[in-house]
């Protein structure tokens, strides 16, 4: 599916992907701790999916292409410029959370300015929205692409079929990205679908399908870039399967008892972060001490963000019914710590 003369990966991109992945991992880790401490509620993690998320998001035009994500997509959010501080505001149920005012569970991002659609916990419900966004781009004559991430579990929903079909009929500019970790909570892939690869479904919608190792940042970026540019150029939708491990239990409330110790170990062993680090070190793009500093700083940054977030007030009860309908005064938004002034995620500042 790749173009004959494929452009090279932009300079420094792999390192930026890694940096965002390290930061994502740090937030993820902190939220998990907070939920274990009972200070954050139900927590879902990105662990194992981050590199696939960030490397695919890196193929977007930030703020121009739209992002339709699911609850596991912290990597997509941070790659696009969401800050750990905002995510912690949400997880800690602070009113200033600009994504949902802590109305939604942790990690349910939403940002019109970054063109991130509001994440819904309802599996696959956002896939039609992505197609609608692509349709709107067509009607408005914009060259924006709708990027749509979802899990393997979402592939079995009727909504997914209807959405992919409509995108196929009108060759709408959508890229469907399935983060296939072969589990829907406890249900293994073989009980979810009779095909081996979600990308095997692409031909049913007359779109190109490709299965990519989702722990390989370069492969993910390259495949996604090709799909994005095809969509932008009028070539229609694509379906990419990103094969990833789910390293944690499904959520902070799941015991993972349905997986054998070997299965869990295999998932942990497929962690994309060490892999990317090694590549970078091998290629001389990252020094070991630089890496250690990066990891340490990410942790410190997240802890600092947590402290700031904890100091913020909870939502006022009087606010509960605000924004049911148009006309209410706007949510105050968030005042970001100064260090995020130029934060543009995985993108060149």
């Amino acid at each position: 599916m790749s173009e004959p003369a494929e452009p090279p990966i932009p300079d420094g991109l792999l390192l930026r992907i890694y940096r965002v992945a390290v930061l994502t991992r740090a937030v993820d880790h902190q939220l998990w701790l907070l939920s274990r401490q009972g200070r954050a509620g139900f927590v879902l993690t990105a662990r194992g999916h981050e590199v696939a998320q960030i490397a695919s998001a890196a193929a977007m035009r930030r703020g121009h292409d739209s992002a339709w994500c699911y609850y596991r997509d912290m990597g997509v959010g941070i790659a696009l410029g969401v800050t750990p501080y905002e995510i912690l505001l949400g997880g800690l149920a602070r009113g200033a959370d600009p994504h949902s005012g802590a109305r939604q569970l942790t990690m349910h991002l939403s940002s019109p300015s970054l063109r991130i659609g509001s994440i819904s916990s309802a599996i696959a419900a956002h896939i039609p929205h992505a197609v609608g966004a692509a349709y709107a781009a067509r009607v408005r004559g914009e060259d924006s692409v709708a990027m749509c991430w979802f899990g393997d579990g979402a592939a079995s929903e009727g909504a997914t079929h209807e959405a992919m079909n409509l995108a196929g009929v009108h060759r709408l500019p959508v890229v469907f990205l399935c983060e296939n970790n072969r589990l829907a909570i406890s249900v293994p892939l073989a009980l979810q679908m009779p095909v081996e690869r979600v990308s095997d479904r692409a031909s049913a919608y007359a779109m190109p399908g490709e299965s990519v190792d989702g722990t390989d940042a370069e492969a993910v970026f390259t495949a996604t870039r090709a799909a994005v540019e095809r969509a932008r150029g009028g070539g229609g939708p694509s379906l990419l399967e990103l094969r990833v491990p789910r390293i944690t239990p499904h959520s902070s409330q799941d015991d993972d008892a349905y997986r054998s110790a070997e299965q869990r170990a295999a998932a942990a062993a497929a962690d994309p972060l060490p892999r990317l680090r090694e590549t970078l070190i091998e290629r001389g793009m990252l020094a070991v001490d630089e890496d250690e500093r990066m990891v340490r700083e990410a942790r410190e940054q997240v802890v600092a963000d947590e402290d700031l977030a904890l100091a913020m007030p909870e939502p006022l009860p009087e606010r509960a019914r605000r924004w049911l309908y148009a006309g209410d005064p706007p949510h105050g938004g968030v005042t970001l710590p100064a260090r995020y002034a130029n934060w543009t995620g995985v993108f060149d500042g």
Partner: protein
Amino acid sequence: MADPQAGRTMVQVLHDTLRAEMLRDPAVVVMGQDVGIKGGVFKVTDGLHAEFGPMRVLDTPISEIVIAGAAIGAAMMGLRPVAEFQFADYMHAAYDQIVNQAATMRWRSVGAWSVPVVFRAPSGGGVHGGVYHSQSIEALYGHIPGLRVVVPATPRDAGGLLRAAIRDDDPVVFFEHKALYRRHREIVADDAEVVPLGVARLDREGGDVSVITYGMGVHLAREAADRCAADGIATEILDLRTLSPFDREAVARTVARTGKVLLVHEANRTMGPAAEIAAFIAEELFTDLDGPILRIGAADCHLPYNGPEETAILPDAARVEEALRRLAAH
């Protein structure tokens, strides 16, 4: 489309309103099954495909989920979609999108995202349409915060309310009674009239009994009121027009005036919209009441193709009249 002096039917006014809004605002698009080439099975979108092209008037596959869902996503990206379901009976497949997505979007994003979609559907029975071409399902949306629910009774209101719905920044569920599509003609003088959502219309003044109703119920009430008038019973008819949020002040005014209330709709009786109005009155206007609050709705049953059973289930003017007389005598 029609001789304006002779008046226009509800279908014609809906058509003309859609067209005018599409001309006025390039963000307005129409999507649904057979809305394009065919112009809709009831002809509401007749000619729009030729005029505005196949993208702004999108013939969709039989895919209710993505009709609703794509409308939502498109609305978030700046369009104002009018999504048509061929029959209200087939909206159920899109229920998750309307209730879990459209209705929650603004609230769950603390005001950041808007979903200005109109979900239109022909509803209502009495046309021998059977189980799947007859339903009155407005209660299923009236219970959901974040939605507005509109049911016009007259051609003029249909136009004015649709115009308001399209311009509204929130999702609106808009039911059109298919048996009213062509039944009445009305001269609609002001082709730019916006009938505000949430405001009832006093259809008829009268001091003895209030009928609070909407949609087809307005016509049953008029007929029954005419018959009662001969015996000196003065009926007030309040047409709610918007069911959610409904016009509490207007309800309070008419209850204060008459103290006797009859609620009428074609939806099933149990847990229908009238239950809410009755409960509101029994809670907040209790001291104004001079008698029981009567309700007339369909007899809690699906609607059949055959006439005798359908007639037995649907409310009619005779039943409304009987209830009016009972209340008046109270």
